[in-house]
């Protein structure tokens, strides 16, 4: 039971990262393989801004917004020119290349040590039904649930959200209706990278920040995203929670070797049975 609760809170973190994947995939059918570095960069940007004597809360806001803006730049320069249709997956390689570049830049400029993020986040533990869970991770879970609800509401109930869905459904027709898929793509990347940076800052304020922080979350995040179906917002959180719970439970019962891979094994099995993921939709290829 303890491990289920711990897994749940960890699942919130994975769910947030998965959301960042899902948002861009839904609208543009692309993923940012450099997402891990965006997570890490969010943390380092926060540190850099705090170093200028900016209050911590403002530094968080500035860091996530700037990383969001960086997301739009990446969409426009590294993703969009390399995405000409469903059979074109050059964007995958360019963003993977970007990941190498950003990681290398971070390593050379920030060093490979672990740094603490002070002044934000909660310390200590909260007791739930007799189990102590980290307050910070609980916060992350709450944020993840909040963001999932907000995004679901946004896409379902607002005009802008309807535009997002229209573009997600059929880019070409949407643009014939006078919608601008380019703007939607920029928006999706901005929101997604903002979420990634926020997740990175919240996570590293608890466990510390190093250049490999993001990479550690990347795999869990996108395994969670495919588990959920890659184009379902609630699916991202569901996938994250399944991944988190499976990992922690398996680690407690069967050791770190099994725990480290169980989430990925579950993902592979789910995909073998249900290629569209748990909450995804089937899209048929046409001749």
């Amino acid at each position, binding site marked *: 039971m303890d491990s289920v609760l711990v897994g749940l809170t960890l699942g919130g973190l994975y769910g947030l990262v998965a959301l960042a994947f899902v948002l861009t*995939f839904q609208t543009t*059918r*692309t*993923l940012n393989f450099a997402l891990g570095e965006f997570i890490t960069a969010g943390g380092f940007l926060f540190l850099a801004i705090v170093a200028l004597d900016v209050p911590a809360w403002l530094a968080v806001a500035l860091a996530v917004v700037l990383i969001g803006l960086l997301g739009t730049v990446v969409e426009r320069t*590294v993703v969009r*020119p*390399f995405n000409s249709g*469903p*059979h074109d*997956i*050059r964007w*995958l*390689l*360019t963003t*993977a*290349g*970007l*990941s*190498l*570049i950003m*990681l*290398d*830049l971070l*390593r*050379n*400029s920030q060093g490979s040590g672990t740094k603490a993020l002070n002044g934000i986040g909660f310390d200590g533990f909260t007791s739930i039904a007799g189990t102590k869970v980290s307050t910070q991770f609980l916060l992350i879970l709450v944020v993840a649930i909040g963001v999932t609800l907000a995004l679901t509401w946004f896409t379902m109930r607002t005009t802008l959200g309807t535009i997002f869905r229209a573009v997600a459904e059929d880019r070409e027709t949407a643009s014939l209706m006078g919608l601008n898929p380019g703007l939607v793509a920029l928006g999706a990347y901005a929101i997604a990278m903002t979420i990634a940076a926020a997740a990175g800052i919240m996570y590293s304020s608890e466990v510390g920040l190093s250049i490999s922080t993001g990479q550690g979350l990347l*795999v869990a995040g*996108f*395994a969670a995203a*495919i588990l959920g179906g*890659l184009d379902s917002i609630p699916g991202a959180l569901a996938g994250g929670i399944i991944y988190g719970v499976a990992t922690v439970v398996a680690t407690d019962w069967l050791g*770190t*070797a099994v725990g*480290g*891979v169980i989430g*990925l*094994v579950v*993902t*592979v*099995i789910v*995909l*073998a049975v249900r*290629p569209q993921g748990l909450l995804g939709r089937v899209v048929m*290829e046409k*001749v």
Partner: protein
Amino acid sequence: MPDTTITLRRSLLRKDILVLVIALAVAAFAIVPGLGGDPLTISRSQSMGAIAVALVAACGLNLLAGYAGLVSLGQGAFVAIGAYVSAWALLETGLPWPVSLVVAIGASAAAGAVLSLAAARLSGPQVAMITLAFAVMVHRIFVELEMFGRLAGYPNVSNHDTSLLEPVTIGGTVLEPPLFAGTGPLVMLLVGALAVLSFVAYRNLAESAWGRSLRALATNEIVASHIGINPRRRKTAVFTVAAAFGGMAGTMQTQLQAHLQPESFTFTLSLSLIIMVILGGSGRLYGPVVGVLVLMTLEHSHAMQGIVEFQQENLSDTWFLSDEGLTGLLLILTLVFLPSGLAGGAQQLWHRWRAARTPAAATSGDEPALDIDEAPIDEAPIESVRQQVQGSSEHHAHAEVMRLTGVTHSFAGLKAVDDMQLSVRSGTIHALVGPNGAGKTTLVNLITGVYPLQGASRVEIRGADATGLAPHAIYQLGVARTFQTPQLFHGESALVNVMAGLDAKLGESFLATLLRLPKVRRLEAQARERAMGLLGTLGIEEHADVPAGELPYGLQRSVELARALASDPEFLILDEPAAGLNPSETYQLGTTLEAIAATGVAILLVEHDMSLVIRVADEVTCMERGARIYHGDAAGLQQDERVLAAYLGAGHVTIEGKGNQNA
């Protein structure tokens, strides 16, 4: 056997031998200078070994990512499995080393097959992600598993009393790894031999019907299944093969280093393998060779260091790119400036140069395929179609080849086909007409198994129940089709496109292809011969070497027809073959169709061009809103009230003659 086929076989054989000789020469050049064990050449031998390992892994990856279009970010995982399993088999099982090697490759291939269970149903980015997840998982396993020594490596002193594997021996000769100054690294001979073998096997697979089927899969799975390829099985096969190549590379690495560390097999290994494939030219035979050589030379040269120092001096001494970042930059630059890689770019330059040298042959141009004067009845092509298609003789006169009964199909409650029946007889042309949206193409898709049949729908082909068969099984029953818009493999020559139509009928086994048995060369020559013949029959043999995507529309239709004919079908389905053709091309098409039917082939012709239908159709069925509203001959069609109503609307003016229309 015709003389040309024998000449073709000989030239194929000569090329195979030439490639083998060159590969051996290159391997010898790479290995021999280091064999003496001169301390100065140890690092050279190590580099050559690393290149050989990367080359074998990249070749396998090219089959998967380049040819089949399944971009895998997990090839490193299979290298790891091959390396660890072979080390384990050598150390713990006491098996003879060749057996250990086979066990390791088998383990790697098996892992690939298991992964393909999940990955073969996916496409594009999902494949990349699932393979990446797999690579991360495998790396974690080797980091965590006690039996592989975790971070201490394998083998290690605390568990095995040694940190180095015993070198393998052949007939008492010890094949030492390139680790110790003064000892001849004889294992380089083994590694070189394995690399040459692997490369030859890779080439045998890539340049074969099997390799062409991978390209077909990459272009369009549905089209691939219509030329007899079972997409899921073929994807599983290519995953397994790519993994086996990875495993082979791993066993070579074990031999070279005699000790394994999990950090050699991080995600970076997978990423750099895919970078090598892209940089060299993915889907090009020599792409991986070029990519591996260029990238590894760059990494080992002083050029990288020079660039790093330049940045530090001129830009910033903290914000600069070192090896890894520069590799990432190189990947992006390659995709921007050389999308088909170095090998692809070179090939294009070569084509352009050749085109400039021989201007006449290469211009496929926009000129019409046929002059009007030339169009009228030319009996020669008809005769040759007759000969070409006469593979399967012995038709009963006008026997029923295909029969549909009670076919009903709904898309999410919308009835697209409603209780249709249709039968097509050998040696006749049955036209299927109807207004747009009547369900004609849906019906064709139901016949060829694109959509599963619903309810009591039943399809019989040549007397056998074909209900519920997949397109590749329908193909084996002798059915071929063309598509509403031509679906060709654009990067491939017209000739290769046509050959793709009969590849699945050749019956080449995988093993025969891998070893390139003489039979394979014979079938290949025959297939080429036949494809060439079909192109000649349709009057387009001069375009045989032109990439299909560069041909004008009318010629693409002809190539697609040739591809359909290549499989020697009993039943040919043509979905609007005259769409987009000019009148003279349409006329020629009609003549060709009649000639094909005269050889006993049953043709289902979905067509809007009424002049063509009236001219060639023996039977006509008219559909409206999914249902059959007319069946009979072409003359009756023009008189039928319901057909006229369907096309012109109720209350139309009856067309009796020019005078009445104005009334």
